[in-house]
């Protein structure tokens, strides 16, 4: 697998994977996309990196704690569900900030929930990939 072309190309391709994953993440509310699929795209980028440089390099370069990723994902999702309760709305009801950002659009609890999904899935897929590669 570790040819020169592949190793060189992956340095350029990985940021593109991440950028594409962000694009999918933010367009997910009204179009195909969202946290889950964006996380899969991001994880694929990291798995390619792992194939090119070996698992140890990837782990050292990005220094990810997969369990903490999963935990923060759950925390973000729970937070998005509980913030509305805190302000007196229904459990999991969508709250939006009044301002609208260029490109991204409105921010609110649904995007926080999706961020939770994103982190959880990245953590889960990377943990699975790490375990499989280590064997």
């Amino acid at each position, binding site marked *: 697998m570790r040819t020169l072309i592949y190793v060189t190309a992956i340095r350029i391709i990985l940021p593109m994977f991440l950028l594409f994953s962000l694009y999918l993440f933010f367009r997910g509310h009204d179009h195909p996309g969202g946290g889950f699929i964006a996380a899969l795209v991001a994880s694929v980028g990291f798995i390619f990196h792992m194939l090119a440089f070996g698992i140890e390099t990837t782990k050292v370069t990005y220094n990810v704690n997969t369990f903490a990723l999963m*935990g923060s994902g759950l925390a973000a999702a729970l937070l998005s569900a509980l913030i509305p309760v805190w302000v007196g709305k229904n459990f999991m009801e969508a709250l939006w900030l009044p301002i609208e950002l260029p490109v991204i659009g409105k921010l609110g609890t649904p995007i926080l929930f999706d961020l939770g999904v994103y982190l959880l899935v990245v953590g889960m897929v990377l943990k699975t990939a790490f375990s499989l590669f280590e064997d």
Partner: protein
Amino acid sequence: MTAHILLVPLLTPLLAAMACLFAWKKKQWQQYIYLSGSMITLAGAAALAWQVLQEGIVSIQAGGWEPPFGITLVADAFSVLLVVVTHVLGVLIYFYTLPPVSVSQERKSFGFYPSLLLMLFGITGALLTGDIFNLYVWFEVMLVSSFVLISLGNERLQLEGAVKYVTINFIASALFLAGIAILYGMAGSTNMADLAVRLRADGVSDIVYVAMLFFLVSFSIKAALFPLFFWLPASYPTPPIGIAAIIAGLLTKIGIYALIRTLILVFPDNAFVQQLLLGMAILTMLTGIFGAIAQYDMRKILAFLIVSHMGYMVMGLAIATPLALAGTIFYMVHSILVKTNLFFISGLVFADQQSFHIRKAGGLYERLPWMAALFLISAFSLVGIPPLSGFWGKYMLASTGLATEQYLLVGVALLTSMLTLWAVSRIWLPVFWQHKGAEKQVTLTQGAFVRKNRGMVVSSAALTLLILWLGFQADPIVEISIQAAEQLFDRQAYIDAVLKP
């Protein structure tokens, strides 16, 4: 806003599991998190139960969507009773799994606590949801985390059991999903209250009975009813005893819960299904008990006893009068406590004798008489000797059975009780009474044994006290069961509570 109390028992296990993920390498922290999390959950469950019993059904709409479009969470007397019992076990299992003989230290540092919390999360969700597709999702949460628990440790035998467990349960889930798809195609809704309105209306298409059979088969697999119980004795005895105890105590009852909830609430009455349930109840009781009599491993005997006693719960559902259903509900509570305690005690026997085989253990009555007493109370309770808890459940079921002239069913139920006495005496005689295990080198004195396995002894004793309380002070739980059963048959009240909040 008081309805938000419903979220406490539901979300606390998830919150605690999340905290455990951050403390993955620190077993000690996970233990603190588990203990505090399960206690807060129990307190929340008790508060929710109090509110439901005082003021009636509590429901909240997730996301604030109008029912039936959003997902509804509903707590009625039936579900809160089971939620409380579940989380009582959730606290006790912490103490039971402290000694390494019930769950080894390596297993505890590989995600035992978060998996257990997620399983409790799944069970609570399944009990509190008011949406049929959401119920499927909760079943999956429960299934996946219990799969982790069963296979934790990767022993060959364990994996063999886990593969059987997962395969058959995935098939059950697929059937469940197919049933949901049919219902959604017919009624365009997955909200149980809304489905109840649409499916119980006049002139509903006969396809609803196809969906009903899908549900029946799927939940019969999950509840281990005849003829779909074979996976249970093959998989439940394989994991470490602490894990086997909680899974054996709880999961099959959630299958029965789902069966009761859907058949009583959602589907129209059908004489054929009623007859089918009657036959299944009879055959489940008989095959289970004969299986138990044929086994030599304590855990296998207990696994077959679980199957056999699922028959009693179906019996109440098959008779389908409020009093019979109250009997079923009481029997579920009794059965969860007693079965778990019997598994607890078989773990204690193993801690002393290093074997689950009834021929390889012996003389415990002489050495550890208190353990014999614990076993005897739970075993007699299971058999149904008055005034222990099993008697009241069986009395309620048998009396309504006689009142509705189901003589065969009542006869088989009584016969099964007698045979249960035989099955438990097959454990009692060789393991506790006879002295033939004396050639074993037993080095521990009684005091040293208790000190070494303190958590197991304490939790088993606490559970025995609960069983005794349930027997001698049956009134409150019987009253709650009757209230829950009447609430189940009062469909309009449930529908109003969900659709017109």
